Protein backbone atom coordinates (compact mmCIF):
# COMPACT_ATOMS: atom_id res chain seq x y z
CA UNK A 1 0.00 0.00 0.00
CA UNK A 2 2.87 2.37 0.80
CA UNK A 3 4.34 1.98 -2.69
CA UNK A 4 0.86 2.55 -4.20
CA UNK A 5 0.48 5.79 -2.25
CA UNK A 6 4.01 6.83 -3.24
CA UNK A 7 3.16 6.20 -6.91
CA UNK A 8 0.12 8.47 -6.70
CA UNK A 9 2.02 11.24 -4.90
CA UNK A 10 4.78 10.95 -7.54
CA UNK A 11 2.28 11.38 -10.37
CA UNK A 12 0.45 14.27 -8.69
CA UNK A 13 3.65 16.29 -8.17
CA UNK A 14 4.73 15.56 -11.70
CA UNK A 15 1.38 16.65 -13.11
CA UNK A 16 1.25 19.68 -10.82
CA UNK A 17 4.46 21.07 -12.26
CA UNK A 18 3.42 20.52 -15.88
CA UNK A 19 -0.31 21.20 -15.68
CA UNK A 20 -0.21 24.75 -14.36
CA UNK A 21 -0.45 27.49 -16.96
CA UNK A 22 2.22 30.19 -17.06
CA UNK A 23 -0.37 32.64 -15.71
CA UNK A 24 -1.12 30.54 -12.64
CA UNK A 25 2.60 29.85 -12.12
CA UNK A 26 3.23 33.63 -12.07
CA UNK A 27 0.30 34.12 -9.67
CA UNK A 28 1.73 31.51 -7.29
CA UNK A 29 5.22 33.05 -7.40
CA UNK A 30 3.82 36.54 -6.76
CA UNK A 31 1.73 35.26 -3.82
CA UNK A 32 4.72 33.46 -2.32
CA UNK A 33 6.89 36.57 -2.79
CA UNK A 34 4.31 38.76 -1.04
CA UNK A 35 3.73 36.42 1.92
CA UNK A 36 7.30 35.16 2.07
CA UNK A 37 9.21 38.42 1.64
CA UNK A 38 7.16 41.63 1.47
CA UNK A 39 4.81 40.96 4.40
CA UNK A 40 7.43 40.08 7.07
CA UNK A 41 9.77 42.89 5.98
CA UNK A 42 6.86 45.30 6.19
CA UNK A 43 5.81 44.10 9.67
CA UNK A 44 9.32 44.35 11.10
CA UNK A 45 11.84 42.31 13.13
CA UNK A 46 9.17 40.98 15.51
CA UNK A 47 7.31 39.20 12.73
CA UNK A 48 7.83 35.76 14.30
CA UNK A 49 6.31 36.95 17.60
CA UNK A 50 3.08 38.09 15.97
CA UNK A 51 0.06 35.73 16.03
CA UNK A 52 -0.54 36.97 12.48
CA UNK A 53 2.59 35.07 11.39
CA UNK A 54 1.04 31.74 12.50
CA UNK A 55 -2.20 32.56 10.76
CA UNK A 56 -0.48 33.45 7.51
CA UNK A 57 1.97 30.51 7.63
CA UNK A 58 -0.86 28.04 8.14
CA UNK A 59 -3.84 29.48 6.29
CA UNK A 60 -1.94 30.90 3.28
CA UNK A 61 -0.86 27.49 1.97
CA UNK A 62 -4.24 26.00 2.85
CA UNK A 63 -6.04 28.59 0.74
CA UNK A 64 -3.53 28.06 -2.07
CA UNK A 65 -4.31 24.36 -1.87
CA UNK A 66 -7.95 25.01 -2.86
CA UNK A 67 -7.13 25.28 -6.56
CA UNK A 68 -5.01 22.14 -6.52
CA UNK A 69 -7.03 19.83 -4.30
CA UNK A 70 -10.24 20.23 -6.26
CA UNK A 71 -8.69 18.83 -9.40
CA UNK A 72 -7.65 15.62 -7.70
CA UNK A 73 -10.87 13.67 -8.24
CA UNK A 74 -13.31 15.74 -10.25
CA UNK A 75 -10.49 16.78 -12.61
CA UNK A 76 -9.52 13.16 -13.22
CA UNK A 77 -13.16 12.28 -13.78
CA UNK A 78 -13.54 15.16 -16.28
CA UNK A 79 -10.48 13.99 -18.19
CA UNK A 80 -11.60 10.31 -18.05
CA UNK A 81 -8.44 9.16 -16.29
CA UNK A 82 -10.14 8.13 -13.04
CA UNK A 83 -11.83 5.09 -14.60
CA UNK A 84 -8.47 3.69 -15.74
CA UNK A 85 -7.10 4.23 -12.24
CA UNK A 86 -10.08 2.44 -10.71
CA UNK A 87 -9.63 -0.44 -13.13
CA UNK A 88 -6.02 -0.88 -12.01
CA UNK A 89 -4.84 -2.90 -9.03
CA UNK A 90 -5.01 0.13 -6.73
CA UNK A 91 -7.42 -0.10 -3.82
CA UNK A 92 -9.85 2.72 -3.06
CA UNK A 93 -7.91 3.43 0.13
CA UNK A 94 -4.60 3.80 -1.71
CA UNK A 95 -6.11 6.19 -4.23
CA UNK A 96 -7.77 8.36 -1.57
CA UNK A 97 -4.78 8.33 0.80
CA UNK A 98 -2.36 9.06 -2.05
CA UNK A 99 -4.36 12.11 -3.07
CA UNK A 100 -4.65 13.30 0.54
CA UNK A 101 -0.93 12.89 1.11
CA UNK A 102 -0.16 14.89 -2.02
CA UNK A 103 -2.46 17.73 -0.87
CA UNK A 104 -0.88 17.73 2.62
CA UNK A 105 2.64 17.60 1.17
CA UNK A 106 1.74 20.50 -1.13
CA UNK A 107 0.49 22.69 1.75
CA UNK A 108 3.37 21.82 4.10
CA UNK A 109 5.93 22.39 1.34
CA UNK A 110 4.51 25.84 0.68
CA UNK A 111 4.60 26.59 4.44
CA UNK A 112 8.21 25.41 4.65
CA UNK A 113 9.10 27.59 1.63
CA UNK A 114 7.30 30.61 3.12
CA UNK A 115 9.05 30.23 6.47
CA UNK A 116 12.45 29.82 4.81
CA UNK A 117 11.78 32.99 2.78
CA UNK A 118 10.59 34.77 5.97
CA UNK A 119 13.84 33.90 7.76
CA UNK A 120 16.04 34.98 4.86
CA UNK A 121 14.10 38.20 4.19
CA UNK A 122 13.94 39.25 7.86
CA UNK A 123 17.62 38.57 8.46
CA UNK A 124 18.62 40.42 5.31
CA UNK A 125 16.53 43.40 6.39
CA UNK A 126 16.96 43.46 10.17
CA UNK A 127 19.96 41.31 11.18
CA UNK A 128 22.00 42.84 13.99
CA UNK A 129 23.84 40.44 16.27
CA UNK A 130 21.80 37.23 16.32
CA UNK A 131 19.80 35.41 13.68
CA UNK A 132 16.10 36.29 13.71
CA UNK A 133 14.20 33.04 14.07
CA UNK A 134 11.34 31.58 16.13
CA UNK A 135 11.81 29.44 19.24
CA UNK A 136 11.87 25.61 19.05
CA UNK A 137 8.56 25.61 20.97
CA UNK A 138 6.97 27.86 18.32
CA UNK A 139 8.39 25.63 15.61
CA UNK A 140 6.77 22.58 17.23
CA UNK A 141 3.39 24.30 17.56
CA UNK A 142 3.62 25.58 14.01
CA UNK A 143 4.47 22.13 12.64
CA UNK A 144 1.59 20.58 14.53
CA UNK A 145 -0.99 23.20 13.54
CA UNK A 146 0.23 23.23 9.97
CA UNK A 147 0.06 19.46 9.54
CA UNK A 148 -3.39 19.02 11.06
CA UNK A 149 -4.88 22.08 9.37
CA UNK A 150 -3.48 20.96 6.03
CA UNK A 151 -4.78 17.44 6.64
CA UNK A 152 -8.22 18.74 7.58
CA UNK A 153 -8.31 21.10 4.59
CA UNK A 154 -7.17 18.31 2.26
CA UNK A 155 -9.92 16.04 3.56
CA UNK A 156 -12.58 18.71 3.13
CA UNK A 157 -11.21 19.53 -0.34
CA UNK A 158 -11.26 15.91 -1.42
CA UNK A 159 -14.75 15.38 -0.01
CA UNK A 160 -15.92 18.32 -2.14
CA UNK A 161 -13.91 17.11 -5.17
CA UNK A 162 -15.47 13.63 -5.07
CA UNK A 163 -18.98 15.06 -5.08
CA UNK A 164 -18.47 17.98 -7.47
CA UNK A 165 -19.69 17.81 -11.05
CA UNK A 166 -16.97 20.05 -12.49
CA UNK A 167 -13.63 21.42 -11.28
CA UNK A 168 -15.01 24.98 -11.34
CA UNK A 169 -18.03 24.04 -9.27
CA UNK A 170 -15.77 22.24 -6.78
CA UNK A 171 -13.42 25.21 -6.46
CA UNK A 172 -16.30 27.58 -5.82
CA UNK A 173 -17.85 25.32 -3.18
CA UNK A 174 -14.49 24.84 -1.51
CA UNK A 175 -13.59 28.54 -1.45
CA UNK A 176 -16.94 29.35 0.17
CA UNK A 177 -16.52 26.44 2.63
CA UNK A 178 -13.05 27.59 3.67
CA UNK A 179 -14.16 31.18 4.09
CA UNK A 180 -17.01 30.01 6.34
CA UNK A 181 -14.60 27.81 8.31
CA UNK A 182 -12.16 30.70 8.80
CA UNK A 183 -14.73 33.41 9.54
CA UNK A 184 -17.39 31.50 11.44
CA UNK A 185 -15.51 30.32 14.58
CA UNK A 186 -14.42 33.86 15.71
CA UNK A 187 -17.97 35.10 15.12
CA UNK A 188 -19.44 32.21 17.08
CA UNK A 189 -17.02 32.65 19.95
CA UNK A 190 -17.78 36.37 20.07
CA UNK A 191 -21.51 35.72 20.27
CA UNK A 192 -21.46 32.88 22.77
CA UNK A 193 -23.24 33.53 26.09
CA UNK A 194 -20.90 35.09 28.68
CA UNK A 195 -21.20 32.28 31.20
CA UNK A 196 -20.32 29.69 28.52
CA UNK A 197 -17.12 31.48 27.48
CA UNK A 198 -16.32 31.98 31.14
CA UNK A 199 -16.62 28.25 31.89
CA UNK A 200 -14.70 27.42 28.74
CA UNK A 201 -11.79 29.76 29.46
CA UNK A 202 -11.70 28.66 33.11
CA UNK A 203 -11.42 25.05 31.95
CA UNK A 204 -8.59 25.85 29.55
CA UNK A 205 -6.77 27.92 32.18
CA UNK A 206 -7.01 25.07 34.66
CA UNK A 207 -5.22 22.56 32.46
CA UNK A 208 -1.55 22.58 31.55
CA UNK A 209 -0.41 23.60 28.09
CA UNK A 210 0.62 19.98 27.41
CA UNK A 211 -2.89 18.76 28.29
CA UNK A 212 -4.46 21.49 26.17
CA UNK A 213 -2.16 20.59 23.30
CA UNK A 214 -2.95 16.87 23.62
CA UNK A 215 -6.68 17.52 23.89
CA UNK A 216 -6.66 19.70 20.78
CA UNK A 217 -4.63 17.08 18.94
CA UNK A 218 -7.09 14.35 19.92
CA UNK A 219 -10.09 16.40 18.80
CA UNK A 220 -8.40 17.08 15.44
CA UNK A 221 -7.48 13.42 14.99
CA UNK A 222 -11.05 12.30 15.71
CA UNK A 223 -12.49 14.92 13.33
CA UNK A 224 -9.96 13.97 10.60
CA UNK A 225 -10.68 10.25 10.95
CA UNK A 226 -14.43 10.84 10.80
CA UNK A 227 -14.07 12.86 7.59
CA UNK A 228 -11.70 10.23 6.13
CA UNK A 229 -14.26 7.49 6.79
CA UNK A 230 -16.95 9.62 5.16
CA UNK A 231 -14.70 10.19 2.11
CA UNK A 232 -14.01 6.48 1.67
CA UNK A 233 -17.73 5.74 1.85
CA UNK A 234 -18.54 8.53 -0.61
CA UNK A 235 -15.77 7.47 -2.95
CA UNK A 236 -17.25 3.98 -3.24
CA UNK A 237 -20.71 5.25 -4.03
CA UNK A 238 -19.83 8.19 -6.31
CA UNK A 239 -16.53 7.56 -8.07
CA UNK A 240 -17.72 4.28 -9.56
CA UNK A 241 -20.54 5.95 -11.43
CA UNK A 242 -18.25 6.60 -14.36
Amino acid at each position, binding site marked *: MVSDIKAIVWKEWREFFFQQSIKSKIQTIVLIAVIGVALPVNKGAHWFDLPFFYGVAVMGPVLMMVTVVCDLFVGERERHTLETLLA*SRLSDKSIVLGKILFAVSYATSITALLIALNIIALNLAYYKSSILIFSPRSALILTFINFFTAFLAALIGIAVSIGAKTVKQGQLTLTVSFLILVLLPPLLIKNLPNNFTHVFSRFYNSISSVTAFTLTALILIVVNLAILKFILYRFKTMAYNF
Partner: protein
Amino acid sequence: MSKENSIIRTNGLSLNFLNVAALSDLSINVDAGTIFGFLGPNGAGKTTTIKALLGLIKPTTGSAFVMGYNTQSSSEKIRASAGVLLEHNGLYEMLSAEENLEYFARIWAIPANERKARIKQLLTHIGLWERRKEKVGSWSKGMKQKVAIMRCLLHRPKLIFLDEPTSGLDPVSTASLRNDLLGMVRDEGVSIFLTTHNLDEVEKMCNSAGIINKGQLLALGTIDDLKNAGDKANVYRISCNPVSPIVLNQLQIMKGFTIAEYSVTDFKVSADESISISVVVQKMIEAGVEIIAVNKAERSLEEFYLSVMNKNYGKRY
Protein backbone atom coordinates in the same frame (compact mmCIF):
# COMPACT_ATOMS: atom_id res chain seq x y z
CA MET B 1 -15.98 -23.68 -24.43
CA SER B 2 -15.31 -25.86 -21.41
CA LYS B 3 -15.96 -24.71 -17.87
CA GLU B 4 -12.71 -26.26 -16.58
CA ASN B 5 -10.58 -24.13 -18.89
CA SER B 6 -12.61 -20.96 -18.42
CA ILE B 7 -10.79 -17.73 -17.73
CA ILE B 8 -14.13 -15.89 -17.62
CA ARG B 9 -17.38 -17.49 -16.53
CA THR B 10 -20.62 -15.70 -15.77
CA ASN B 11 -23.79 -17.35 -14.49
CA GLY B 12 -27.04 -15.46 -15.06
CA LEU B 13 -25.41 -12.09 -14.52
CA SER B 14 -28.02 -9.33 -14.29
CA LEU B 15 -27.61 -5.68 -13.51
CA ASN B 16 -30.27 -3.05 -13.09
CA PHE B 17 -29.70 0.69 -13.10
CA LEU B 18 -32.75 2.57 -11.82
CA ASN B 19 -35.10 -0.21 -12.98
CA VAL B 20 -33.46 -0.38 -16.40
CA ALA B 21 -31.84 -3.73 -17.18
CA ALA B 22 -28.25 -2.99 -18.20
CA LEU B 23 -27.51 -6.73 -18.27
CA SER B 24 -30.05 -9.56 -18.31
CA ASP B 25 -29.17 -13.10 -17.36
CA LEU B 26 -25.77 -13.04 -19.04
CA SER B 27 -24.07 -16.44 -19.08
CA ILE B 28 -20.80 -16.77 -20.97
CA ASN B 29 -17.65 -18.86 -20.84
CA VAL B 30 -14.35 -17.72 -22.28
CA ASP B 31 -11.54 -20.26 -22.58
CA ALA B 32 -8.04 -19.41 -21.41
CA GLY B 33 -5.61 -18.58 -24.19
CA THR B 34 -8.29 -17.42 -26.62
CA ILE B 35 -9.65 -14.14 -27.94
CA PHE B 36 -13.32 -13.51 -27.23
CA GLY B 37 -15.12 -10.82 -29.20
CA PHE B 38 -18.08 -9.11 -27.62
CA LEU B 39 -20.24 -7.44 -30.25
CA GLY B 40 -23.14 -5.08 -30.00
CA PRO B 41 -24.33 -1.59 -30.89
CA ASN B 42 -23.61 1.46 -28.70
CA GLY B 43 -25.26 1.14 -25.29
CA ALA B 44 -25.73 -2.62 -25.68
CA GLY B 45 -24.00 -3.43 -22.38
CA LYS B 46 -20.47 -4.28 -23.56
CA THR B 47 -18.62 -1.79 -21.34
CA THR B 48 -20.96 -2.54 -18.44
CA THR B 49 -20.02 -6.21 -18.78
CA ILE B 50 -16.31 -5.34 -18.59
CA LYS B 51 -16.89 -3.22 -15.48
CA ALA B 52 -18.89 -6.03 -13.88
CA LEU B 53 -16.14 -8.54 -14.72
CA LEU B 54 -13.57 -6.25 -13.11
CA GLY B 55 -15.74 -5.99 -10.01
CA LEU B 56 -16.18 -2.25 -10.45
CA ILE B 57 -19.97 -2.60 -10.40
CA LYS B 58 -21.91 -5.18 -8.47
CA PRO B 59 -24.47 -7.34 -10.27
CA THR B 60 -28.06 -7.31 -9.07
CA THR B 61 -28.22 -11.09 -9.41
CA GLY B 62 -25.98 -13.85 -10.73
CA SER B 63 -22.27 -14.36 -10.36
CA ALA B 64 -19.08 -14.07 -12.34
CA PHE B 65 -15.64 -15.62 -12.03
CA VAL B 66 -12.57 -14.19 -13.70
CA MET B 67 -9.31 -16.16 -13.55
CA GLY B 68 -11.01 -18.23 -10.87
CA TYR B 69 -11.75 -15.23 -8.66
CA ASN B 70 -15.26 -14.17 -7.74
CA THR B 71 -15.85 -10.65 -9.06
CA GLN B 72 -17.68 -9.62 -5.91
CA SER B 73 -15.31 -10.93 -3.26
CA SER B 74 -11.92 -10.82 -5.00
CA SER B 75 -12.15 -7.94 -7.45
CA GLU B 76 -8.77 -6.50 -6.40
CA LYS B 77 -7.08 -9.80 -7.30
CA ILE B 78 -8.75 -9.73 -10.73
CA ARG B 79 -7.61 -6.17 -11.38
CA ALA B 80 -4.10 -7.08 -10.21
CA SER B 81 -3.80 -9.80 -12.85
CA ALA B 82 -5.65 -8.16 -15.73
CA GLY B 83 -4.76 -5.44 -18.19
CA VAL B 84 -7.54 -3.01 -19.06
CA LEU B 85 -8.11 -0.49 -21.79
CA LEU B 86 -11.48 1.14 -21.34
CA GLU B 87 -13.47 3.29 -23.74
CA HIS B 88 -11.30 6.37 -23.05
CA ASN B 89 -7.55 5.95 -23.28
CA GLY B 90 -7.07 7.28 -19.71
CA LEU B 91 -3.76 8.96 -20.51
CA TYR B 92 -2.56 12.00 -18.58
CA GLU B 93 -2.26 14.50 -21.39
CA MET B 94 0.12 16.85 -19.56
CA LEU B 95 2.58 14.03 -18.96
CA SER B 96 4.91 12.48 -21.52
CA ALA B 97 4.42 8.97 -22.91
CA GLU B 98 7.30 7.77 -20.75
CA GLU B 99 5.83 9.35 -17.61
CA ASN B 100 2.41 7.85 -18.31
CA LEU B 101 3.94 4.39 -18.54
CA GLU B 102 6.24 5.07 -15.59
CA TYR B 103 3.23 5.94 -13.42
CA PHE B 104 1.46 2.69 -14.23
CA ALA B 105 4.68 0.70 -13.92
CA ARG B 106 4.91 2.08 -10.38
CA ILE B 107 1.26 1.20 -9.77
CA TRP B 108 1.95 -2.36 -10.96
CA ALA B 109 4.93 -2.42 -8.61
CA ILE B 110 7.39 -3.27 -11.38
CA PRO B 111 10.85 -3.09 -9.77
CA ALA B 112 12.73 0.12 -10.58
CA ASN B 113 15.55 -1.70 -12.43
CA GLU B 114 13.07 -3.48 -14.75
CA ARG B 115 10.76 -0.51 -15.24
CA LYS B 116 12.90 1.47 -17.66
CA ALA B 117 13.74 -1.57 -19.79
CA ARG B 118 10.08 -2.61 -20.06
CA ILE B 119 8.98 0.92 -21.00
CA LYS B 120 11.73 1.10 -23.61
CA GLN B 121 10.73 -2.30 -25.00
CA LEU B 122 7.06 -1.30 -25.34
CA LEU B 123 7.63 2.19 -26.73
CA THR B 124 10.23 0.88 -29.18
CA HIS B 125 7.76 -1.75 -30.32
CA ILE B 126 5.23 0.91 -31.32
CA GLY B 127 7.92 3.16 -32.76
CA LEU B 128 7.53 5.94 -30.20
CA TRP B 129 10.67 5.55 -28.08
CA GLU B 130 12.35 8.53 -29.75
CA ARG B 131 9.34 10.68 -28.89
CA ARG B 132 8.97 9.43 -25.30
CA LYS B 133 9.61 12.85 -23.73
CA GLU B 134 6.77 14.57 -25.61
CA LYS B 135 3.50 15.33 -23.85
CA VAL B 136 0.87 12.91 -25.15
CA GLY B 137 -1.73 15.68 -25.22
CA SER B 138 -0.29 16.94 -28.50
CA TRP B 139 -0.40 13.52 -30.17
CA SER B 140 -2.94 12.03 -32.60
CA LYS B 141 -5.69 9.75 -31.33
CA GLY B 142 -4.01 6.74 -32.90
CA MET B 143 -0.67 7.43 -31.19
CA LYS B 144 -2.37 7.89 -27.84
CA GLN B 145 -4.28 4.65 -28.33
CA LYS B 146 -1.03 2.79 -29.01
CA VAL B 147 0.50 4.13 -25.77
CA ALA B 148 -2.68 3.23 -23.85
CA ILE B 149 -2.54 -0.32 -25.19
CA MET B 150 1.12 -0.60 -24.20
CA ARG B 151 0.17 0.68 -20.74
CA CYS B 152 -2.17 -2.25 -20.21
CA LEU B 153 0.55 -4.69 -21.28
CA LEU B 154 3.19 -3.27 -18.89
CA HIS B 155 2.80 -5.93 -16.20
CA ARG B 156 2.40 -8.85 -18.62
CA PRO B 157 -1.21 -9.64 -17.67
CA LYS B 158 -2.78 -13.07 -18.14
CA LEU B 159 -6.05 -11.54 -19.28
CA ILE B 160 -6.61 -8.33 -21.20
CA PHE B 161 -9.86 -6.42 -21.51
CA LEU B 162 -9.92 -4.17 -24.54
CA ASP B 163 -12.88 -1.88 -25.06
CA GLU B 164 -12.90 -0.72 -28.70
CA PRO B 165 -9.09 -0.83 -28.97
CA THR B 166 -8.86 0.01 -32.67
CA SER B 167 -11.17 3.00 -32.54
CA GLY B 168 -9.21 5.89 -34.02
CA LEU B 169 -6.41 3.75 -35.40
CA ASP B 170 -5.44 3.85 -39.06
CA PRO B 171 -5.61 0.58 -41.07
CA VAL B 172 -1.86 -0.03 -40.79
CA SER B 173 -1.89 0.45 -37.01
CA THR B 174 -5.01 -1.71 -36.74
CA ALA B 175 -3.32 -4.54 -38.63
CA SER B 176 -0.18 -4.14 -36.55
CA LEU B 177 -2.17 -4.26 -33.29
CA ARG B 178 -4.06 -7.31 -34.54
CA ASN B 179 -0.78 -9.11 -35.20
CA ASP B 180 0.56 -8.12 -31.78
CA LEU B 181 -2.51 -9.41 -29.99
CA LEU B 182 -2.50 -12.67 -31.96
CA GLY B 183 1.21 -13.02 -31.16
CA MET B 184 0.59 -12.55 -27.45
CA VAL B 185 -2.10 -15.20 -27.44
CA ARG B 186 0.06 -17.61 -29.44
CA ASP B 187 3.39 -17.04 -27.66
CA GLU B 188 2.42 -16.11 -24.11
CA GLY B 189 -0.97 -17.75 -23.69
CA VAL B 190 -2.66 -14.45 -22.92
CA SER B 191 -6.47 -14.35 -23.07
CA ILE B 192 -8.27 -11.36 -24.54
CA PHE B 193 -11.80 -10.06 -24.00
CA LEU B 194 -12.42 -7.64 -26.82
CA THR B 195 -15.39 -5.39 -27.45
CA THR B 196 -15.71 -3.84 -30.85
CA HIS B 197 -18.04 -2.70 -33.62
CA ASN B 198 -15.63 -4.00 -36.20
CA LEU B 199 -16.99 -7.38 -37.29
CA ASP B 200 -14.17 -7.96 -39.73
CA GLU B 201 -11.73 -7.59 -36.84
CA VAL B 202 -13.62 -10.17 -34.79
CA GLU B 203 -13.73 -12.58 -37.71
CA LYS B 204 -9.97 -12.25 -38.26
CA MET B 205 -8.89 -12.35 -34.63
CA CYS B 206 -11.36 -14.05 -32.35
CA ASN B 207 -11.86 -17.71 -31.52
CA SER B 208 -15.34 -17.11 -30.19
CA ALA B 209 -17.79 -14.26 -29.88
CA GLY B 210 -20.98 -13.12 -28.24
CA ILE B 211 -23.57 -10.69 -29.53
CA ILE B 212 -25.32 -8.47 -27.01
CA ASN B 213 -28.02 -5.84 -27.33
CA LYS B 214 -30.01 -4.03 -24.65
CA GLY B 215 -28.21 -6.13 -22.04
CA GLN B 216 -29.34 -9.42 -23.54
CA LEU B 217 -27.04 -12.02 -25.01
CA LEU B 218 -28.41 -12.83 -28.46
CA ALA B 219 -25.80 -15.29 -29.68
CA LEU B 220 -22.70 -17.03 -28.37
CA GLY B 221 -20.27 -19.48 -29.89
CA THR B 222 -17.13 -19.99 -31.92
CA ILE B 223 -16.85 -17.84 -35.03
CA ASP B 224 -17.54 -20.86 -37.28
CA ASP B 225 -20.54 -21.88 -35.16
CA LEU B 226 -21.99 -18.41 -35.43
CA LYS B 227 -21.49 -18.21 -39.19
CA ASN B 228 -23.07 -21.65 -39.62
CA ALA B 229 -25.91 -21.06 -37.20
CA GLY B 230 -29.61 -20.81 -38.04
CA ASP B 231 -30.41 -19.85 -41.61
CA LYS B 232 -26.94 -20.52 -43.02
CA ALA B 233 -28.44 -22.84 -45.62
CA ASN B 234 -30.38 -19.87 -46.97
CA VAL B 235 -27.37 -17.83 -48.08
CA TYR B 236 -26.85 -17.92 -51.83
CA ARG B 237 -24.84 -16.16 -54.50
CA ILE B 238 -26.96 -15.40 -57.57
CA SER B 239 -25.37 -14.45 -60.89
CA CYS B 240 -27.50 -12.69 -63.45
CA ASN B 241 -27.53 -10.39 -66.45
CA PRO B 242 -27.07 -6.68 -65.60
CA VAL B 243 -29.87 -5.39 -63.37
CA SER B 244 -31.23 -1.85 -63.66
CA PRO B 245 -31.34 0.43 -60.58
CA ILE B 246 -35.16 0.36 -60.67
CA VAL B 247 -35.21 -3.43 -60.42
CA LEU B 248 -32.57 -3.29 -57.69
CA ASN B 249 -34.73 -0.89 -55.67
CA GLN B 250 -37.67 -3.28 -56.07
CA LEU B 251 -35.58 -6.21 -54.83
CA GLN B 252 -34.36 -4.28 -51.80
CA ILE B 253 -37.86 -3.67 -50.49
CA MET B 254 -39.13 -7.22 -51.11
CA LYS B 255 -40.00 -9.27 -48.02
CA GLY B 256 -38.60 -12.71 -47.22
CA PHE B 257 -34.94 -12.13 -48.03
CA THR B 258 -32.11 -9.64 -47.55
CA ILE B 259 -29.55 -8.61 -50.12
CA ALA B 260 -26.24 -8.75 -48.25
CA GLU B 261 -23.98 -7.77 -51.15
CA TYR B 262 -24.60 -6.83 -54.75
CA SER B 263 -23.00 -5.69 -57.95
CA VAL B 264 -24.73 -5.19 -61.31
CA THR B 265 -24.47 -8.89 -62.17
CA ASP B 266 -24.09 -10.58 -58.79
CA PHE B 267 -26.15 -10.82 -55.60
CA LYS B 268 -25.50 -12.38 -52.21
CA VAL B 269 -28.92 -13.14 -50.81
CA SER B 270 -29.85 -14.23 -47.31
CA ALA B 271 -33.34 -15.69 -47.29
CA ASP B 272 -35.46 -15.79 -44.14
CA GLU B 273 -35.57 -19.16 -42.38
CA SER B 274 -39.16 -19.92 -43.49
CA ILE B 275 -38.53 -19.20 -47.18
CA SER B 276 -36.80 -21.54 -49.64
CA ILE B 277 -34.39 -20.24 -52.27
CA SER B 278 -36.76 -21.27 -55.06
CA VAL B 279 -39.30 -18.74 -53.76
CA VAL B 280 -36.63 -16.06 -53.73
CA VAL B 281 -35.53 -16.95 -57.27
CA GLN B 282 -39.15 -16.85 -58.43
CA LYS B 283 -39.63 -13.40 -56.88
CA MET B 284 -36.47 -12.14 -58.59
CA ILE B 285 -37.54 -13.49 -61.98
CA GLU B 286 -40.95 -11.83 -61.53
CA ALA B 287 -39.13 -8.58 -60.81
CA GLY B 288 -37.35 -8.87 -64.15
CA VAL B 289 -33.98 -10.37 -63.20
CA GLU B 290 -32.47 -12.76 -65.73
CA ILE B 291 -30.77 -15.34 -63.55
CA ILE B 292 -27.71 -17.21 -64.86
CA ALA B 293 -26.62 -19.27 -61.84
CA VAL B 294 -27.52 -19.89 -58.19
CA ASN B 295 -24.84 -21.17 -55.77
CA LYS B 296 -24.69 -21.70 -52.04
CA ALA B 297 -22.51 -19.08 -50.33
CA GLU B 298 -20.71 -18.79 -47.01
CA ARG B 299 -22.13 -16.22 -44.66
CA SER B 300 -19.84 -13.63 -43.13
CA LEU B 301 -19.99 -12.76 -39.44
CA GLU B 302 -21.42 -9.39 -40.41
CA GLU B 303 -24.33 -11.10 -42.19
CA PHE B 304 -24.95 -13.28 -39.17
CA TYR B 305 -24.79 -10.23 -36.88
CA LEU B 306 -27.30 -8.34 -39.03
CA SER B 307 -29.61 -11.32 -39.23
CA VAL B 308 -29.55 -11.66 -35.43
CA MET B 309 -30.35 -7.98 -35.04
CA ASN B 310 -33.12 -8.16 -37.67
CA LYS B 311 -34.64 -11.23 -36.06
CA ASN B 312 -34.61 -9.82 -32.53
CA TYR B 313 -35.51 -6.23 -33.18
CA GLY B 314 -37.48 -6.46 -36.43
CA LYS B 315 -35.38 -3.77 -38.11
CA ARG B 316 -33.57 -3.83 -41.40
CA TYR B 317 -29.95 -3.00 -40.49
